[in-house]
């Protein structure tokens, strides 16, 4: 297993981020049963979605004339690089998309998704290469990074939504119950081989630490006041 599988490697390296409370409900329990492959992929999409929220927050801060923390950006992009592009998308490209193409299902969508994977990797390489203290200090590079994050978010929100609602269900329809069980186990084995045990929990903790550093971890802050919308008594 590579160094990326160590717990220390997952820790947010920025000084302003506090580690998430391991006792909090935020830390999901390790699954005891085999997760069906499409469910597993959608669960991984949850990690992607949370990084997209981090990207959105950092983009908003830059566009509002604020600063950009290079460490937070780098940590977020590394989650994308290591987990989404280096693992999750490999499962899709190795197992899901070929089967769909073989069956002649959603082939046009699959081609678009493959292209978007490639474009996303280009954006991530750019972000990782430029997420340095010296570059984010300048307005020009900071604006370029914000634009790259914005493009990434704009692409991946509909990308993952289409996969969850169209592509994965189509894939599931092609599998027998035995294949669902076998492939789910194989996905779990691949995850353990690449990252070690409890990798998903560690990944969620890693993203939560970035959210805390950005001030978007506390879910209650997003609950709206609906007083103005309540019916008159």
């Amino acid at each position, binding site marked *: *297993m590579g160094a*990326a599988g160590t717990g220390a490697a997952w820790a947010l390296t920025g000084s302003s981020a506090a580690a998430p409370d391991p006792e909090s409900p935020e830390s999901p329990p390790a699954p005891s049963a085999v997760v069906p492959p499409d469910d597993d992929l959608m669960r991984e999409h949850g990690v992607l979605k949370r990084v997209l929220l981090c990207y959105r927050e950092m983009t908003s801060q830059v566009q509002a004339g604020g600063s950009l923390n290079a460490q937070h950006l780098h940590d977020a992009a590394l989650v994308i690089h290591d987990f989404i592009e280096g693992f999750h998308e*490999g499962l899709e490209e*190795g197992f899901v*998309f070929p089967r769909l193409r073989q069956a002649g299902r959603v082939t046009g969508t*699959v081609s678009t998704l493959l292209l978007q994977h490639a474009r996303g990797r280009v954006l991530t390489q750019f972000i990782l*290469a430029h997420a340095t203290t010296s570059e984010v200090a300048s307005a020009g590079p900071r604006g370029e990074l914000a634009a790259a994050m914005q493009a990434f978010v704009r692409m991946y929100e509909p990308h993952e939504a289409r996969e969850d609602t169209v592509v994965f269900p189509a894939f599931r329809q092609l599998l027998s119950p035995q294949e669902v069980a*076998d492939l789910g186990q194989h996905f779990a084995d691949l995850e353990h081989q*690449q*990252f070690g045990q409890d990798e998903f929990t560690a990944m969620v903790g890693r993203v939560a630490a970035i959210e805390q550093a950005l001030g978007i971890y506390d879910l209650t802050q997003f609950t709206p006041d609906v007083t103005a919308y309540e019916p008159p008594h």
Partner: protein
Amino acid sequence: MRRARRLRAAAVPCPVRAACGAVAGTCAAVLLLAACGTSAAAGAQAAGKPSGHGPTVKIMARSLPAVGTVLVTGNGYALYMFGPDNHRSVTCTGVCAGTWPPVKLPVGGSLAAGPGVSVSLLGSDPDPDGGRVVTYDGWPLYTYTGDIDSGQATGQDIDLNGGDWYVLRPSGQPLIPSPAPPGRPDRRRPARRGPAAGPCCWPGAAWPWARPGPVPPGR
């Protein structure tokens, strides 16, 4: 340095040509078909002695935008080398091979070199996921799922799945860009890399994990 076993074969028609275009660019087990020449290829250089009945995997050279003349499959898809392979063995397996399908040499298959490609540099290495992977000057060859159409090289100079990916010149030399000047950040390099691992991938008709074969330890 261990060199890839040299295969000697003659150019023979690819018996599975019809399958080549169906899913090219998506799966390791199928990409070997995409590498098949569409014919015995007039003008192609034969790469050794015939194996008898298997398909021919043909490696070509073609000029592509932005990268110049590089190795491609018989269908024109760019071929890449993976840094951690270290010029001698297949290390992109499992999930990695989902994104970077290796060019497989079918059992009983043969190799052929197109114009400008050196027969003497063609060979094959065992794939830990099963079968053999075509090599060039010792480098195992891979395609990239991000190359949606032939003639693209969108995987050039990408750091992914635990290492760097480059196209190859017909000389066998990887196309590695010059490093950034001192004092400037290297725009090409993420700061840390994830590992590559595990057995892979959708093989067409059969499930890969049902296939007997060694899984490399600790990967």
